[in-house]
């Protein structure tokens, strides 16, 4: 019972200690507390993941894959906050920002394991409110504007979710637990159920930034401090995708016609994959390109969501791989910004980094390979398994679109690799002075790169079962 909530409590305690330390201007202590809370959360969830799945207090799911997802979320959060160390020590009220990051991770962990639709709503909202503030915290005109536009769209999505919840709960409820609502709905597919389905699916599609609900993502990830983009690109999407899988294929809406479920999410998947893969080709900004890549990756994940319960483990693996690679790629942007204060944020501006900074260069290469889905990286297993499930379920055309989109997206990931190693910096442009090494970020990028490679290679030696077993939701 206690172990089910322990990871969430650890994260929130870390955040509370961070806020308290920040009040006494102890910024270093604040960031340390936030990281410590997240690490403790990851460790506790890892311990809990060895247990059989259980429904605790009708509120959260814990054990096996559910706890494993929480462990992954907390671990990525800890790595990102560690990587933001330098940024947080310098930013105005950096301790508070560290606390916000830790709270958003706790909220993501709650969303991923919610077994009660009210808990899911509150967790998603807590995640979003932290995200608005983190995006705003760059305090440039662009980031303030991106934050307010993000807020307006996010608030509309919340409105849709709340109405969906009210209809579902009002007409069938009596209790907000998934198990209860599932029992009451049964196999009914009348207008109220389908309306609630559409409203909640739209709200969640917005949270994960699937096309056509993606427009906030492009501006937000381009303009937010890269350290916070690293957090917001992966962790909330991982949480929302797991929540979608539980909601749509395992609980409340599992009684709907599978074909209905399939076509809604398959069309979102195809649109996201096509839009993300082609739109990114036109981008010059590195972080905006990563935002497009995020839309494409969510498209691959939605392929699995469309197929349903059998795709749960592959999808969780795919989104984990994405969250890791996106965190590393955005943190790398933060490292470059610290070292080259004059960097205009373009992919071309990365010229020569690979040769000047070998460790950073190799780190970015690993992230890009994982996002492409190259073998020997975590991204390969995610795509391989998701497309494999699609083919064996008879939707080979969906896998074909996914593979084609991956090949097309090589265009923009490849552009980064070319800039890193083959382009030389413009000779005429003198390098701006005053650059500094961002060692904590570099350490975080290296750790993430090692994890990505370990997930990619270890299964080749010991077999894929260990990896799949870790994220099995049964």
């Amino acid at each position, binding site marked *: 019972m206690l172990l089910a909530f322990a990871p969430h409590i650890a994260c929130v305690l870390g955040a509370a200690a961070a806020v308290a330390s920040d009040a006494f201007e102890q910024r270093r202590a604040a960031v340390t507390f936030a990281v410590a809370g997240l690490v403790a959360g990851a460790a506790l969830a890892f311990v809990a993941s060895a247990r059989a799945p259980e429904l605790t207090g009708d509120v959260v799911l814990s054990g096996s894959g559910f706890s494993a997802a929480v462990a992954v979320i907390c671990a990525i959060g800890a790595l990102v906050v560690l990587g933001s160390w330098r940024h947080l020590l310098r930013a105005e009220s950096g301790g508070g920002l560290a606390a916000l990051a830790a709270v958003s991770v706790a909220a993501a962990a709650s969303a991923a394991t919610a077994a009660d639709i009210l808990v899911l709503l509150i967790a998603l909202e807590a995640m979003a*409110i932290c995200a608005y503030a983190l995006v705003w915290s760059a305090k440039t005109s662009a980031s303030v504007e991106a934050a*307010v536009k993000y807020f307006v769209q996010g608030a509309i999505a919340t409105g849709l979710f709340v*109405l969906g919840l009210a209809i579902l709960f009002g007409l069938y409820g009596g209790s907000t637990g998934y198990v209860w609502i599932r029992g009451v709905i049964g196999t009914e597919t009348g207008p109220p159920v389908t309306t609630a389905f559409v409203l909640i699916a739209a709200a969640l599609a917005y949270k994960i930034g699937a096309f056509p609900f993606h427009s906030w993502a492009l501006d937000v990830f381009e303009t937010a401090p890269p350290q916070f983009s690293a957090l917001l690109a992966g962790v909330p999407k991982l949480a929302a995708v797991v929540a979608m899988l539980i909601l749509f294929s395992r609980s409340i809406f599992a009684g709907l016609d599978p074909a209905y479920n399939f076509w809604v999410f398959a069309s979102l998947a195809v649109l996201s994959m096509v839009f993300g893969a082609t739109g990114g080709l036109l981008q010059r900004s590195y972080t905006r390109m990563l935002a497009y890549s995020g839309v494409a990756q969510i498209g691959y994940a939605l392929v699995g969501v469309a197929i349903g319960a059998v795709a749960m483990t592959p999808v969780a693996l795919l989104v984990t791989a994405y969250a890791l690679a996106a965190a590393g790629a955005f943190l790398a942007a933060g490292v470059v910004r610290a070292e080259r204060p004059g960097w205009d944020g373009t992919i071309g501006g990365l010229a020569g980094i690979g040769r000047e900074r070998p460790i950073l260069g190799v780190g970015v290469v690993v992230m890009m390979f994982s996002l492409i889905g190259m073998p020997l990286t975590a991204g390969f297993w995610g795509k391989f398994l998701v497309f494999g499930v699609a083919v064996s379920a008879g939707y080979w055309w969906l896998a074909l679109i996914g593979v084609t989109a991956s090949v097309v997206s090589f265009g923009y990931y490849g552009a980064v690799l070319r800039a890193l190693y083959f382009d030389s910096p413009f000779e005429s442009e003198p390098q701006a002075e005053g650059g500094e090494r961002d060692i904590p970020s570099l350490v975080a990028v290296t750790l993430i790169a090692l994890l990505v490679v370990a997930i990619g290679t270890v299964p080749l030696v010991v077999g894929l079962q260990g990896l799949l077993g870790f994220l099995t939701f049964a």
Partner: protein
Amino acid sequence: MSLLVVTVGLFSLGMYGALTRRDLVAILASIEVMLGSATLLLVGLAAAGTPVGPSEGAVEATGVMVIVLAAAEAAIGLALVISVARRFKTTRIDELAEVKG
């Protein structure tokens, strides 16, 4: 039934406002109407005595939670709007043109 018509009507009104108004304060108000209509649905259902489930008072509790949520959202929304007003000297969303979206 009439409850459903009223609340869905209110919700649509709020959503129409949120999508078409260009002033951030008006958008914020429209969003509050959207959330308020969902609360009204919950409260109305609770007053009508439906539905009956295992946990008594769950509908009312959910309604209170939605109100708290709306308040939290209004708080951060107003903070963002004030920040925009200070920086850009306007609260019209179409006059902000720093980002592409």
